[in-house]
C-alpha cells in the first residue's frame, strides 16, 4: 500500500511519468536510481516536442519569426532556471551540457596568466575540495593543478560519512584560491551545511563553488542565501532532458573570467588576427547551444515548482527515514553514510555482508528493482570506507514506500542466492 504523505499525492505525481508503468523482468519497474538520472514527466516531453514541431530554429542571430520564437523560448528557459535557484538575473546562468562541463568551465578560468588576480593560479596556490566529491569535481581540479603547479587539498570524512571540518582553518587559508564542494553527496547522501566553510573562505579571500548536481533537483536552493560564488547543476537529474546543465556565477565574476570554448555566438567582433568577446552568458556559450534541451529544462523547472521544492524535499526526507528503518532490519546490511534522516538526502548506499554489489544489483534487477552498483564516480569514498563498491538506492518525487519495501524484499532474495 502506498503511504500517502500529508500534502503530497505521490500517485498523482507518478501518473505524470510514462515510464513508471513499464515492466522489468516481469515485475513492475521499481526505479531507485534517480541519483544517476531522473525520469521525465510528460510535461517535459511535451515541451520538447512542441518546441521541435512549433518553432525549431537557431537562436540569437535571426530576425525571422521562427528564430525569434526559438530565442524567446531559450531565453525564457534561462530566466526560469535563474529564478529557480535564486539568481540575481538571468544572465548569471550559463547553459552547459551538464554539471561536469560547468565545473570544467570554472576550472579553465584559472591560470597563471589570468588577468583578474582572483583567477590567477600557480605554484604555492591551493584549491580545496573534499573526499566525498564526485569525480566530476575532482578531475577538473587535478588537471588544473597539473597545468598550473598549484596544490590540490581536501577535507576528509568522518566515520559516519560527514565532512570532517576539524581542520577547516588550516585547510582553507591565505593560499586557498577556491573551495569547491559537493552540496549533497551522490554516494553518501550527506547534505553539507556550507555556512562555516563559506565564512572561512570569505575571511581568506577564496572563491566558493558548489556542486549542486544532487541538491538543486531535491531541495530549495537559493544561491543568494548560500552566499557562494558558483553553482553547477545538471538537467537530467531534475526531470529535464539529457544534454543540458548550467553554471550559475555572480555576474561580476563571470565578467572577470576569460572565455573557455571559442566559436560562434561568444564573440563581439572577429578578425583573422584577433577577436573580442561577448558579455556573459554568451561569452561561455560557444556554438549552437542545447536549445530544445534548455526549453525542456525550463519545463522541468516549472513542473518541479508546481509541485513545490519544499514538498518534494519533505517527501524524500520521509522516504529516507522509512528506508533507513527498513534497511536496518536486513541482516548484515551496513549503511555507508549518515544513518539518520537528518542532514541527508534520499540516496542511501550500503554493503550487504560480503556479497559484491554487482551481484546484489543483478538479483534486484530480476525483481524489477533498479539500483546502481559500483563506485558511483566517487571512488575515494569507497576507498575511505574500505569497500570496492556500494549498492545505492536513490529516491525522487515519484518514489513510494512500496518501492522501498520491494527493495527490502529483493535483498532477502539476494541473501538467499549468495548467503
Amino acid at each position: 500500500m502506498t503511504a500517502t504523505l500529508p500534502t503530497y499525492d505521490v500517485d498523482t505525481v507518478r501518473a505524470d511519468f510514462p515510464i513508471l508503468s513499464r515492466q522489468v523482468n516481469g515485475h513492475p519497474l521499481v526505479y531507485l536510481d534517480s541519483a544517476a538520472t531522473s525520469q521525465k514527466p510528460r510535461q517535459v516531453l511535451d515541451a520538447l516536442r512542441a518546441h521541435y514541431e512549433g518553432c525549431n530554429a537557431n537562436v540569437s542571430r535571426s530576425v525571422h519569426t521562427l528564430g525569434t520564437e526559438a530565442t524567446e523560448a531559450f531565453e525564457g528557459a534561462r530566466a526560469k532556471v535563474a529564478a529557480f535557484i535564486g539568481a540575481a538575473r538571468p544572465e548569471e546562468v550559463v547553459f552547459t551540457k551538464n554539471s561536469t562541463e560547468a565545473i570544467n568551465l570554472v576550472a579553465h578560468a584559472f591560470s597563471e596568466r589570468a588577468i583578474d588576480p582572483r583567477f590567477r593560479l600557480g605554484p604555492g596556490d591551493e584549491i580545496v575540495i573534499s573526499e566525498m566529491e564526485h569525480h566530476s569535481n575532482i578531475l577538473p581540479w587535478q588537471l588544473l593543478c597539473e597545468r598550473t603547479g598549484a596544490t590540490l587539498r581536501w577535507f576528509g570524512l568522518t566515520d559516519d560519512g560527514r565532512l570532517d571540518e576539524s581542520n577547516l582553518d588550516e585547510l582553507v587559508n591565505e593560499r586557498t584560491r577556491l573551495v569547491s564542494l559537493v552540496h549533497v553527496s551522490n554516494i553518501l547522501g550527506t547534505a553539507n551545511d556550507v555556512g562555516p566553510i563559506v565564512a572561512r573562505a570569505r575571511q581568506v579571500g577564496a572563491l566558493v563553488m558548489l556542486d549542486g548536481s544532487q541538491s538543486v533537483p531535491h531541495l530549495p536552493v537559493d544561491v543568494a542565501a548560500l552566499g557562494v560564488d558558483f553553482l553547477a547543476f545538471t538537467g537530467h537529474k531534475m526531470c529535464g532532458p539529457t544534454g543540458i546543465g548550467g553554471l550559475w556565477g555572480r555576474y561580476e565574476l563571470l565578467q572577470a573570467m576569460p572565455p573557455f570554448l571559442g566559436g560562434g555566438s561568444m564573440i563581439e567582433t572577429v578578425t583573422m588576427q584577433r577577436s573580442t568577446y561577448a558579455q556573459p552568458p554568451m561569452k561561455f556559450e560557444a556554438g549552437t547551444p542545447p536549445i530544445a534541451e534548455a526549453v525542456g529544462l525550463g519545463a522541468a523547472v516549472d513542473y518541479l515548482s508546481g509541485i513545490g521544492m519544499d514538498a518534494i524535499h519533505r517527501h524524500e526526507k520521509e522516504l529516507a527515514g522509512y528506508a533507513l528503518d527498513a534497511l536496518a532490519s536486513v541482516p548484515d546490511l551496513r549503511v555507508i553514510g549518515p544513518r539518520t534522516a537528518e542532514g541527508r538526502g534520499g540516496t542511501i548506499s550500503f554493503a550487504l555482508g560480503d556479497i559484491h554489489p554487482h551481484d546484489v544489483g543483478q538479483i534486484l534487477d530480476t525483481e524489477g528493482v533498479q539500483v546502481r552498483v559500483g563506485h558511483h564516480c566517487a571512488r575515494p569514498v569507497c576507498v575511505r570506507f574500505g569497500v570496492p563498491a556500494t549498492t545505492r538506492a536513490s529516491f525522487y518525487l515519484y518514489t513510494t514506500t512500496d518501492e522501498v519495501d520491494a527493495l527490502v524484499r529483493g535483498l532477502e532474495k539476494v541473501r538467499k542466492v549468495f548467503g
Partner: protein
Amino acid sequence: MTKVDDLYQEIILDHYKHPHGRGLREPYLAEAHHVNPTCGDEVTLRVNLADDTITDVSYEGMGCSISQASASVLHEIMVGLPVIEALARHDAFATLMAGRGEVEPDEEVLGDAVAFAGVARYPARVKCALLSWMAFKDALARAAEESIVEGSAS
C-alpha cells in the same frame, strides 16, 4: 501586411532615406564606437557640449533602416537639449524599446521616435534601434567627464 507597416512606419523610412545630421563633425568632446555582434552593424558617434547643452550629435556607420533611422531621429531630438533632458529622453526611448510593444510612447517627449514603438515588438530589431542610442549614452557620459575636467581646470 499591417504588421510590417507597423515596423517600417513612413517616418522611419523617411529618416532612413533622408538621414538628418549624418557624418562625423568637428568639434566634439567625446566619441563612442558601438557594434551589434549579431549582425556586424556599427556606429561611430560624436557628442559636443557647451554649457551643459548638446550642441551637436554627429555619426557615421553601417546598418539597417531601423538603425540608420534611429540615429537620424536621435540627432534630431537631442541637439539643443540640456544634458539632463537628453538623459530623460534617452530613458524614455530605452523603456519604449524594452516594452515589447506594451509601452505607450509619449510624443511630447519622443517626437519622431514614437514611430519606433512597433520595433519593440520585434526583439531581434530592438538592438538595431538602440545601437546609436547606446553609443550616444556612452559618448555623453565621456563628454560630461571631459567638460567637468575642463571646467575644473579653468
